[in-house]
């Protein structure tokens, strides 16, 4: 609460410093020629007041709850808490909820006794952080305003700040990548400490139900990822591509080579709509409409194991979703083939389709292949269609009418439900995420490499 008050105070200091700098520079202007416009003098002071203080608050806010917890645990009330970590954590989190007024009373009476302590420590740390930030804002404003003079190059100062902000904005990309890598790696390492890595990567049995009590039967907790990898590959790289590649490629050929321009002007946006439909809609469509049709078809041709959560239903709908993607990649590659090759073929008397099949497609093949790899990477990372239409049963099967499960389905399955952050189930989701991240990254790099080499060939 008082951190947001400090935020308001910092903004007030910044505005005041800005106005003060502007006013002083305007007065100087009547006496002598300024290097920078008065508005730059104002902005200079305001930036020096605001940015360091805001940085401090941004660093302080996420740290504060840890410091509060430490202080509470060090206090006499905190020392009385049980030593067992999980119990202590749950009492603490209850006490936090009581302190913030989210609930009246905890299950454990101790949480009520330490709630006032938490409230006190919270306000103490917030006042500390807030006061430090306001002091820094005032100091920044003071230092900046002292340099206010006719010769002072305020514009250069402001632009230097702007440069810092620009650079910081683009650093977010690296920070996000690092954040993904570190969080996945860190949690995966914790998982591999509980469960051997070679069993995870090469095990063929997946049944993540863990025994809660030691004497419970039938819950081995096996985390062999091979069935999931197969299911992912089967749905995303085989079934979906059997649907998407011919349709996408032929659509692109028709659109670029044959369609009259007015028809193309209509068809292209329609394909784009197909790409813009949210995946949850495709998932619902697959589960509610396509899956029963596929199952009935399977039963009618005598496949008794046909499931209503078949790989075929999920894969074919995913293929439909990918069509526009394949089509636009193929479109780009075909357009990149030099006009001279096409003209040469036509001049030799080849028909249009012969030119396309024997000249354009072979020349565009690397680009198309790269596009297909990108499409595969997108398909195996797709979540909602498989969550809603594919099952949770980890089968190693070639039968498209049977149910298979995928990496993304299992991640969702493992992380929704009761969550203990340290249980192997939760951590296994991160290990799966790491595998998924690695595979899609690899596919993308290969695809981009192929596409780039191919582009260079014709440039």
């Amino acid at each position, binding site marked *: 609460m008082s951190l947001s008050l400090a935020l308001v105070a910092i903004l007030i200091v910044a505005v005041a410093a800005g106005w003060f700098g502007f006013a002083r520079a305007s007065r100087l202007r009547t006496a002598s020629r300024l290097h920078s416009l008065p508005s730059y003098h104002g902005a200079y002071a305001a930036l020096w007041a605001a940015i360091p203080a805001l940085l401090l608050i941004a660093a302080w806010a996420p740290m504060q709850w840890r410091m509060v917890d430490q202080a509470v645990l060090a206090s006499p009330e905190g020392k009385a808490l049980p030593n067992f970590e999980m119990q202590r954590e749950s009492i603490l989190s209850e006490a936090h909820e009581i302190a913030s007024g989210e609930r009246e009373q905890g299950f454990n009476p101790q949480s009520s006794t330490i709630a006032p302590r938490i409230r006190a420590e919270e306000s103490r740390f917030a006042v500390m952080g807030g006061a430090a930030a306001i002091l820094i804002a005032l100091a920044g404003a003071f230092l900046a305003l002292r340099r206010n003079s006719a010769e002072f190059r305020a514009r250069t100062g402001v632009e230097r700040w702007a440069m810092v902000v620009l650079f910081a904005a*683009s650093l977010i990309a690296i920070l996000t990548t690092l954040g993904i890598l570190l969080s996945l790696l860190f949690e995966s390492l914790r998982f591999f400490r509980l469960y051997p890595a070679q069993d995870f990567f090469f095990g063929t049995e997946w049944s993540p139900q863990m025994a809660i009590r030691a004497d419970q039967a039938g819950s081995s907790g096996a985390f062999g990822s091979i069935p999931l990898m197969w299911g992912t590959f089967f749905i995303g790289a085989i079934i979906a591509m059997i649907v998407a590649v011919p349709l996408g490629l032929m659509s692109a050929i028709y659109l670029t080579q044959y369609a009259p321009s007015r028809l193309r002007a209509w068809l292209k946006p329609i394909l784009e709509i197909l790409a813009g439909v949210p995946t*949850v809609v495709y998932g619902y469509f697959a589960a509610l409409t396509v899956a029963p049709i596929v199952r009935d078809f399977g039963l009618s041709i005598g496949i008794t194991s046909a499931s209503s959560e078949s790989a075929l239903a999920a894969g074919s709908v995913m293929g439909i979703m990918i*069509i526009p993607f394949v089509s636009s990649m193929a479109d780009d590659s075909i357009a990149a083939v030099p006009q001279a090759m096409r003209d040469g073929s036509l001049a030799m008397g080849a*028909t249009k389709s012969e030119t*396309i099949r024997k000249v354009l497609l072979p020349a565009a093949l690397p680009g198309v292949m790269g596009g297909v790899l990108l499409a595969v990477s997108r398909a195996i990372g797709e979540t909602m269609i498989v969550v809603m239409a594919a099952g949770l049963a980890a089968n190693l099967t070639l039968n498209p009418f049977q149910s298979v499960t995928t990496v993304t389905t299992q*991640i*969702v399955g493992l*992380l929704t439900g009761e969550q203990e*952050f340290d249980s192997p189930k939760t951590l296994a989701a991160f290990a799966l995420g790491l595998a998924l991240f690695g595979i899609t990254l690899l596919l993308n790099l290969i695809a981009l490499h192929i596409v780039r080499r191919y582009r260079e060939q014709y440039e």
Partner: protein
Amino acid sequence: MSAATQHPSSRWTDEAMTRRVRRRYISERIFRGTGLAAISLSVLFLAFLLWNMGSKGIGGFTQYEAQLPIDFTKTDLFLDPAALKGPDARETVAGADLTTALSSAAQAAYGRDAAEMFSDAAVEKLTDKIVADPNILTGSTTLWLPVGSKVDVAAKGNGDPAAERVVNLLNQKHALHRAFNMQFLTGADATDPSSVGVWGALKGSFYTIMVTILLAFPIGVLAAVYLEEFAPRNRWTDAIEVSINNLAAVPSIIFGLLGLAVFLDVMNLPRSAPLVGGLTLALMTFPVIVIAGRNAIKTVPPSIRDAALGVGASKMQVTFHHVLPLALPGILTGTIIGVARALGETAPLLMIGMRAFVAAPPTGISDPATVLPVQIFLWSDEVDRGFIEKTSAAIIVLLLFMLLMNGLAIYLRNRFERRW
């Protein structure tokens, strides 16, 4: 002589030649036909998908109402009309057992099968009526009330036999009609499909997307400006470019895992809140905006920069006074498309716990909330048949929003984008 037999005849008058040419033209037509079939099939898929959702979901916007004669003097409500004044009236009425009163009135009017024909939505409406006019409690009256999910589904064509009988009886007495379902647009999630609504989810989506836009748009534009206009050619810049291109291709569920590990576990931000959802989606949308922004900035011709530099503007002034305003329409188009994608995103939000049952619309960015796509996912999991049309109706609402945003992007592109 042997050469003539090896090479096929190339004289146009030869029959072999005409046959061959005809064959080639046939295969040309087949190829062309295949292309047309492929694109038609894709368009047909889209049409079927939209028609499928539309025909299933349109019923969700309407709700059957039944006429119910109710004699309040025979019910055991123990409500005194004179006491029902002032702000507490609603609470007093809600405390009375209206459900039983409705059930017995329905049985009296339409027989045993009708005992459970009304549900929470009807109770809600009856409460409103009593609060508005307490005097109806003194006598008997006839009201139109929304029927429960079972009867509603039966009236729309596929219910169980008991509900079917009630519908037939009601139809005979002309006591059933279809009305617009206001509750669906103004309500939030509920356990009974006849009283669910999308307003709560829409509000959650709004807060989430606001957080996303407020973070991703400025940061994305600034990063694009830096990379296009200022970045020196060095290893840092390469690292930034590589990460942006990779992030754009990372599966969305990975961003959910990142949000779970960083925002919830390390930073201890509130679970299920639009704040965390918006942060996660912002990280996902940011690379899209950077890529769109760079492309838009690239199209601004160098002559503009040279002219501004020539009259003495600094590099920063050139960028922010001239290049950026000219590139803005292109950046906005890319941003809207990226935000539309974030609006339809489900998987990362499931990871950070936005799948809780939230019966009250959120009032801020740190309240527990759900968003429209997640709501669709949650309803699709329900077993009650009444949820099928509600799910499809919510999909119609979502698709309308997507269409609106993409339409806006296309309008901006056509209206403001300049070709140099």
